[in-house]
């Protein structure tokens, strides 16, 4: 048995192989782009430090993130929860239920006060006093507030917890909010936060983040959306297995044409790879077997903010990017909004309904030239008409 010879007895008692352990450390180190000394420190810290207490709260979610975590392959899920972290509370995975489960949470929070890592998946409903989702008689918001107060840090797992996701899609009947939004609005205490968006996020990203925090008691370098740069630093497109077809200009035009059968680029089938930051093409899924694009389906951009509301699936990215221009020729409402938001708001109220000039007199005001600063701008007749139409719409609302 090639049990661990270094570190404490913990691993040897549980028959965690040295090779298996080092493999995991190496993969986490490469994922988080750690230098040689940091990688060694990671393996040392993981083998010697006590297991990190983790409290996992699930709110408005589909259990997809937990499903993803259970499919973790480096390390295997059982190895992760029995050897590396102490998963003290998890609705789906814990054996206890009812009072026992809730008391386990309380014990964990008391024992590891200020030290436990809080993992949140799912968005938090805020409307109707949080009545849309309750656990043990508490609204999700109250549960989060209570647990966040004494947590050392928070990891928002999945797009719902990171950006709102599906529950926050229009018309957002539950008033679903992400952890970031709640922190910014002051509804939840501000704590160090890392977002791991994705629907679901890569299993490797979750287990890697937990391992990194266990070892270094901190987060790796994050981007402006608080995502680890090592996982979300590149777009799916940049490391796509079909990238060479994109470079050659070979595109599948439909899901059953010759191009699709030959594995050509899915860009014109609505692939969001070029605008989606994730490591799907690099790390892949199901033990590194494949990724959605490799399997023949375009990327749907699940790890970006605005997922669901942003645009329609299977629509060519170019049609979306250039949509404003195409629409403007037919319907100028959007042009009016653009002019108001981009120009007028600097001198007038940001709320167009509060503009003192009546919408129908806006063109007259411009043509008269009575206002000094207006004289320096020239707007075409169609632009002024669009602005008028937009203002009329806003006043009506």
């Amino acid at each position: 048995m090639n049990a661990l010879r270094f570190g404490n007895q913990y691993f040897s008692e549980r028959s965690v192989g040295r090779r298996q352990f080092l493999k995991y450390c190496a993969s986490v180190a490469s994922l988080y782009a750690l230098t040689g000394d940091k990688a060694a420190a990671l393996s040392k810290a993981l083998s010697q430090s006590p297991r990190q207490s983790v409290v996992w709260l699930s709110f408005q979610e589909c259990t997809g993130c937990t499903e993803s975590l259970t499919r973790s392959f480096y390390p295997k899920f059982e190895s992760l929860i029995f050897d590396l972290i102490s998963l003290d509370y998890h609705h789906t995975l814990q054996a206890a239920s009812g009072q026992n489960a809730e008391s386990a949470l309380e014990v964990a929070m008391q024992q590891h006060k200020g030290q436990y890592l809080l993992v949140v998946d799912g968005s938090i409903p805020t409307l109707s006093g949080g009545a849309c989702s309750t656990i043990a008689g508490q609204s999700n918001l109250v549960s989060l507030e209570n647990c966040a107060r004494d947590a050392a840090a928070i990891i928002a797992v999945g797009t719902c917890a990171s950006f709102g996701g599906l529950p926050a899609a229009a018309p957002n009947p539950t008033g679903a909010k992400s952890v970031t939004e709640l922190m910014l609005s002051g509804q939840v205490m501000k704590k160090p936060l890392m977002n791991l968006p994705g629907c679901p996020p890569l299993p490797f990203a979750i287990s890697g983040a937990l391992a990194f925090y266990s070892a270094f008691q901190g987060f790796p370098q994050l981007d402006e959306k608080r995502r680890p740069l090592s996982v979300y630093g590149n777009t799916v497109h940049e490391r796509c297995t079909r990238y060479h077809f994109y470079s050659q200009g070979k595109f599948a035009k439909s899901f059953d044409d010759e191009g699709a059968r030959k594995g050509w680029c899915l860009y014109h089938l609505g692939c969001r790879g070029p605008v989606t930051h994730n490591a799907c093409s690099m790390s892949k899924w199901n033990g590194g077997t494949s990724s959605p694009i490799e399997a023949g389906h375009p990327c749907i951009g699940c790890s970006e903010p605005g997922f669901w509301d942003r645009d329609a699936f299977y629509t060519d990215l170019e049609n979306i990017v250039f949509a404003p221009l195409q629409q403007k020729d037919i319907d100028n409402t959007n042009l009016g909004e653009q002019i108001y938001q981009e120009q007028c708001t600097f001198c007038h109220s940001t709320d167009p309904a509060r503009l003192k000039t009546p919408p129908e007199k806006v063109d007259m005001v411009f043509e008269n030239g009575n206002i000094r600063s207006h004289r320096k701008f020239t707007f075409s007749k169609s632009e002024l008409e669009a602005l008028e139409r937009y203002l009329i719409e806003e006043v009506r609302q």
Partner: protein
Amino acid sequence: MMCLSSLFRLHNLKCMGIGLFLILFSSTLTANPTRPEFFSFHDRNFDGFISRSEYTVMLSQMRNQSAKRMMKRGQLLPLPEFDAVDINGDAKINEKELVDMLQIRRQKRKHLHSRKKNKLQRRD
């Protein structure tokens, strides 16, 4: 004679009084040439300038739902930082600086439109 001289004095005093009144209150009757005119809704203290704090409030108001939605779709130019607008670096934005910035934004928008139009035409 006495009567006329007293009337004359009274007339002089009246003239002096009116003159004094005009001197004292002329500043309130006519605009102060050193004070610039109010030009923006966001100039909360009506001093004719947009201060850094006023500009910050303005930016936060500009990041409303509609603007955020448009920004996500790339339909809106990013909001300029205070220092980028305050060209002379006096920590306040005057009318000229604001108008100049808006004109630059307008030119940028026109440029973007023409680029997208060309790209669309090439694609067609």
